[in-house]
């Protein structure tokens, strides 16, 4: 009697446990790729992890975070802050993006907003949403007197292209100058973005069209406002997001060659001309390459596995520069001859092992990395 009742009770309990257990177990077997990312402050690099020199500011989810001495600190609340760059003295230039417009602000290195430099919201009584404006990628010139940025003015009708503008540090966009008027170019491409002021001019990404209508990107140089400038890379290389070594003798960028990949590429640079392109990383989806302020390497964003959020990586310069520099770089096809006496990158394909700095974050790959000593 006891045996049958016991067995029945045992089986009932077993079935409940196994049934619920298998249901819960299957739930735990869901792939980890859909798990929400961690905030940078929650995912501190381990004490033994590689430490980047200086201070870096990155954006995740509309908030800015600084990384120094191997630790993240949250600088702002998540309110649309993005695209930081350092100014002389240590303050930051940042973009504050709302749903329909964006503005440039100055911010202390501790994350306190100081001054709004642009006012791109539509006039109060405007009924046209097109009266708002976008501004992106502010960057101060090497002499500290001008701010270069991408601005969606002028615009006509449906066509919204970004053009490169400059404005005085203590002025406004009304006193600014258009360097590249993309609205005059035939066909919409998105325009000119991510200007990087260099001695004697500005280097930026230009989006243009192939004869078949497909769009490619090119890194361009312009030495004065209103000039047409010239391309530093070929259309087929499809390069963008330029970043310069501290001495402005090397340029890092990403080149996709028209595919859904993005290689980290470097080239020597001097006076508006680049040397031969050298691929440094070719097996990752690289974004926002940024030279270290001491020239010791290049940080960038890339997913660990394709299709995942972007993490922070670093590749030391010692791994892609030959020990013995040669006197001059050879010019690339489509680029002007370079008189630069800079060291020459290795001509052979490189097999590098970049250093992964973060694991579970979701850094905005369209936001620049600000990096200062």
């Amino acid at each position, binding site marked *: 009697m006891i045996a049958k009742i016991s067995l029945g009770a045992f089986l009932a309990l077993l079935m409940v446990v196994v049934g619920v257990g298998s*249901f819960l177990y299957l739930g735990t077997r869901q*792939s980890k790729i859909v798990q929400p990312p961690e905030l940078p402050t929650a995912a501190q690099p381990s004490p033994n992890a590689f430490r980047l020199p200086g201070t870096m500011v990155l954006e995740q989810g509309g908030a800015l975070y600084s990384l120094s001495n191997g630790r993240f600190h949250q600088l702002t609340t998540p309110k649309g802050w993005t695209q930081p760059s350092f100014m002389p003295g240590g303050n930051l230039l940042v973009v504050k993006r709302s749903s329909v417009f964006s503005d440039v602000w100055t911010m202390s290195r501790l994350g306190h907003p100081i001054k709004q430099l642009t006012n791109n919201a539509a006039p109060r009584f405007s009924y046209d949403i097109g009266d708002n404006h976008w501004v*992106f990628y502010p960057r101060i010139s090497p002499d500290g007197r001008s701010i270069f940025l991408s601005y969606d003015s002028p615009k006509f009708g449906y066509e919204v292209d970004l053009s490169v503008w400059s404005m005085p540090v203590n002025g406004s966009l009304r006193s600014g100058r258009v360097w590249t008027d993309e609205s005059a170019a035939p066909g919409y491409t998105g325009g000119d973005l991510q200007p990087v002021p260099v001695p004697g001019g500005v280097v930026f990404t230009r989006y243009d069209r192939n004869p078949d209508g497909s769009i490619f990107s090119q890194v361009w140089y312009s030495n004065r406002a209103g000039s047409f400038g010239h391309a530093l890379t070929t259309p087929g290389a499809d390069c963008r997001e330029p970043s310069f070594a501290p001495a402005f003798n090397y340029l890092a960028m990403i080149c996709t060659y028209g595919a859904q990949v993005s290689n980290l590429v470097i080239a020597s640079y001097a006076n508006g001309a680049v040397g031969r392109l050298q691929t440094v990383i070719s097996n990752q989806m690289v974004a926002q390459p940024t030279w270290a302020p001491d020239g010791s390497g290049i940080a960038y964003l890339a997913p660990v596995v394709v299709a995942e959020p972007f993490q922070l990586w670093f590749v030391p310069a010692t791994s892609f520069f030959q020990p013995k520099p040669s006197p001059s770089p050879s010019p690339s096809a489509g680029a002007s001859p370079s008189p630069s006496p800079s060291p020459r990158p290795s001509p052979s394909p490189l097999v590098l092992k970049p250093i992964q700095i973060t694991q579970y974050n979701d850094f905005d790959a369209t936001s620049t990395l600000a990096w200062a000593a």
Partner: protein
Amino acid sequence: MLGVKPGRRARASRRRLNPLRSLVISALAVVLAAGSGSLAYFLPAAMIAFNASGQSIDLPTPSPTSILFSPTPSASASPTVAASGAFTVLLLGSDDDSKFSGDRVLTQSMILVRVVPSTKQVTMLSIPRDLWAPLATGGTGKMDWAYSYGGARAAIATVEADFGVHIDDYIWVGLLGLIRVIDVIGGIDIVTSNPVLDDYYPLDVNTNSLYGYQRIAVLGGPQHLDGTHALEYVRSRHNDLQSDFGRSRRQQQVLLAIRAKAKLLSAEDIPSLAQAIGGEIKTSISIDKVARLLPLASSFDDPSKIHTIVLASPYTHGGAPDGSLFPDWGAILPLVHQYFP
């Protein structure tokens, strides 16, 4: 022991099960319980899948052309499911907000996909929504009208007749479906071809203001996109001066990015995926065919074997009524028959 009567002892022994029988019953109980737990886990997904799949399209036989309004191009739709197991699917993407009644929606996206399992080749042909062509429902008009006039049946018949191809199945996805799919798989990585800026992008998803506008700015370069921003990237076309060719290219990019991410999913993700897209996907593909195709999906991993085609110039040119495009069938049909034999 001595006091126990023989009959009582026999009854007691009958109430006790022998160990082997107990073990078998326990094992059966474990299997049954595990099966029930698994069934409870997968049942909602299965129900959604059954509702979404196997949609009957009842294409006219032997050829849709017999009931069509005399199309200009050769319309010899050849029902060729090759010996290689190749098949062709028409992907349809639509607005499906409450601006539209019932199933009378325009197709924002029409992509003809041919899959050849034996060679692991995939060809994606984007059909311009503004292509001015004979419609299966009668008359001539923009391609995106076909679905709104006669649903998937009319869209398929139109494409079959105009392009001279045989379509085995269709998949229709609503706007919210695309957002939810991308969100539930945790977003996609994509190298956006260019910044997509639009001052008058429709504000019709998750809002009561169906005819409003919003400004969008999806910046260029590699990035991780959630569903909302991916939709903005593929849907905006106000700035594409060459009609929606740029948009067609972007749609193909996003489809390939979704495919790349889907390879990382496990079977246990299906319930949450099915729940997310419930009601936003319809397909004529049956459940058993989906089950047969799923293992194939992960083997298509050679980018050089994925062809994407957009019917820009010289295949089409402007000047057609209502801002649409005239097709050059003499150029289009040889191209189509090369990739969709």
